[in-house]
């Protein structure tokens, strides 16, 4: 691939998927939300009352990481980026999906 956009898109998809899995597993949320009180908190700070939602924060962490990695990949010389395999755009996300299915498998074996 010699054009910049596909380099960004493939890198973004792959890095986002990988980071998203670890963000969920290790709770690397950029911010959190308390639906019972309607308040946002930074990182994983708990809500003042009721449950704390981390999903938005996990997506933000993964999106930011993917975007940064994508931009770095775009800065690489063409001689390097042309070797980037387009299949990473689906292979890594599929791997992450399978990893989540395994992570949550306990719910289907209870």
């Amino acid at each position, binding site marked *: 691939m010699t054009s910049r956009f596909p380099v*960004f898109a493939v890198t973004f998809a792959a890095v986002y998927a990988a980071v998203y899995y670890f963000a969920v597993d290790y709770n690397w949320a950029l911010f959190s939300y308390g639906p019972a009180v309607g308040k946002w908190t930074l990182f994983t700070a708990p809500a003042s009352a009721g449950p704390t939602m981390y999903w938005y924060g996990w997506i933000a962490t993964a999106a930011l990481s993917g975007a940064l990695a994508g931009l770095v990949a775009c800065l690489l010389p063409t001689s390097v980026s042309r070797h980037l395999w387009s299949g990473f755009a689906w292979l890594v*996300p599929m791997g992450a999906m399978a990893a989540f299915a395994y992570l949550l498998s306990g719910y289907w074996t209870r």
Partner: protein
Amino acid sequence: MWIALVITHGLSAFLLLGAITHQVVSVWAPVRARAGNFVARFRAVGSANYVNAIIVLYIATMILGAILYTNYRITARLTLEQGRYWKSFGAFELKEHLIAIGLATLPAYWYFWQPSQDAEHARTRSMLTTLLAFVIWWGFLTGHVVNNIRGLGT
């Protein structure tokens, strides 16, 4: 409000489901000759024409779902936990993560459906479409089941 939102979310998902299903079938079983019967016509759609609509519908459906999630978290999810509907609970947890991952593939999905990429990246295009189709079908079916157990806004 929540009932209106969940209905709109469902309708948006329904449109998305139709579009991606047409596209994934046409990718794996394209029609070469003139389409005669219903199945052949289903396969013969101009699948590239669905790309932008799928992207817009995916993002719109996800945004609606993200809003609904705040209500789900303090209502329906409690019903699932207290009723020990663990399989449905786990399926919905997986839905959240699949939808989030599917979002990341949209830029690549858009690019590899461009006409200039027709021959060179056919496999990548097929696999990205299949991945999105799986995510969307899982999300639709899981959301429907969970809403049957405990509807939002009820």
